[in-house]
C-alpha cells in the first residue's frame, strides 16, 4: 500500500512539474532547450537551498526523473567533492553527470546510426 502511494505521489508531482513546463510553453513559446535548461537550473537551485531532499522524500521519481533530478545530482556531487578537496569540489559534479551523459551520447550515436529520420521536415 505504501509502495502504491509512492507511485501516486510520483505521478502527481511529476505531472505537476511537466504541467508547469507546458504552461511556460503555451504562454511564452519557449523552445525545449530553454525549458530543459530552466528546469535543470531549478533542480540545481532546489538542491543548493537544501529543499530538494524534502521534495524527493515525498515525491520520489516525480522530481528525480524530470531534468530537475539531473541538476540536483550535479550539486550533490559538488557537495560531496568539496569535503575532499578543491579538485574534487570542481570535478565531482561532472562525475555525477557522467552516467546520464554517457547513456545519452552513446545511445544517441547508436540509434542515429540504426534508424532513419522520421521527420518530414527536410
Amino acid at each position, binding site marked *: 500500500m505504501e509502495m502504491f502511494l*509512492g*507511485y501516486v505521489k510520483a*505521478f*502527481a508531482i*511529476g*505531472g505537476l*512539474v*511537466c*504541467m*508547469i*513546463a*507546458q*504552461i511556460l*510553453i*503555451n504562454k511564452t513559446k519557449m523552445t525545449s532547450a*530553454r*525549458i*530543459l535548461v530552466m*528546469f*535543470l537550473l531549478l533542480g*540545481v537551485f532546489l538542491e*543548493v537551498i537544501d529543499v530538494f531532499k524534502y521534495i524527493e522524500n515525498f515525491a*520520489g*521519481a*516525480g522530481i*528525480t*526523473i*524530470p*531534468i530537475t*533530478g*539531473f*541538476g540536483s*545530482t*550535479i*550539486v550533490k556531487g*559538488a*557537495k560531496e567533492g*568539496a569535503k575532499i578537496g*578543491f579538485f574534487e*569540489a*570542481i*570535478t*565531482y*559534479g*561532472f562525475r555525477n*553527470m557522467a*552516467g*546520464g551523459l554517457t*547513456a*545519452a*551520447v552513446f*545511445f*544517441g*550515436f547508436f*540509434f*542515429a*546510426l540504426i*534508424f532513419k529520420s522520421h*521527420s518530414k521536415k*527536410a
Partner: protein
Amino acid sequence: MEDKQYMEYVHANAQKSNHLVTLVWAFIVGGIICCIGQGFGDLFKFALPNWEKSKIAALVSMTMIFLGSFLTGIGVYDKLGAKAGGGSIVPITGFANSVVSPAMEFNKEGIVLGMMAKMFVVAGPIIVAGTVSSVASGIIYYIVGLFQ
C-alpha cells in the same frame, strides 16, 4: 459585424480549451513517465540490494535515457511529444529525445559534422549549464567548508 464578434468569441474559447487540453496531456504523460522511473527504481533496489542509492539513481536515469532514445529511434517519442509537449520534454527521456532526434535528422549530412555535431544542438546548453553550476557550487561549498 456580429459574425466577426462571434468568430472572435469562438476562437478565444477554442484557444482556451486547447490550452487546457495540452496541460492535461502534459500532466498525464509526465506523470506516467515518472511512474515508470519509480518502477525501475524499485526494481533495481530489489535486484541490486548492495548498490548505494546514488548509483541506483544513475542507473534509473540511464535506463530511462535508453528508453527515450529507443522510442525516438522508432519514431514513437516524437509522436507522443506532439501531444504531450512539456510532459515529454521535461522528464530525462526528453533529454534523450533532444539528443537522438537531431542526431537522426542530421545523419544524412555526414557522421562527424552532421550527426556527432548536431547531437548537441539542445543537449549542449544543458551540458554547459550543468557544468557551470557544478563548478560554481563546488567552489562555493569548498569555500564554505574552509570556514567550518
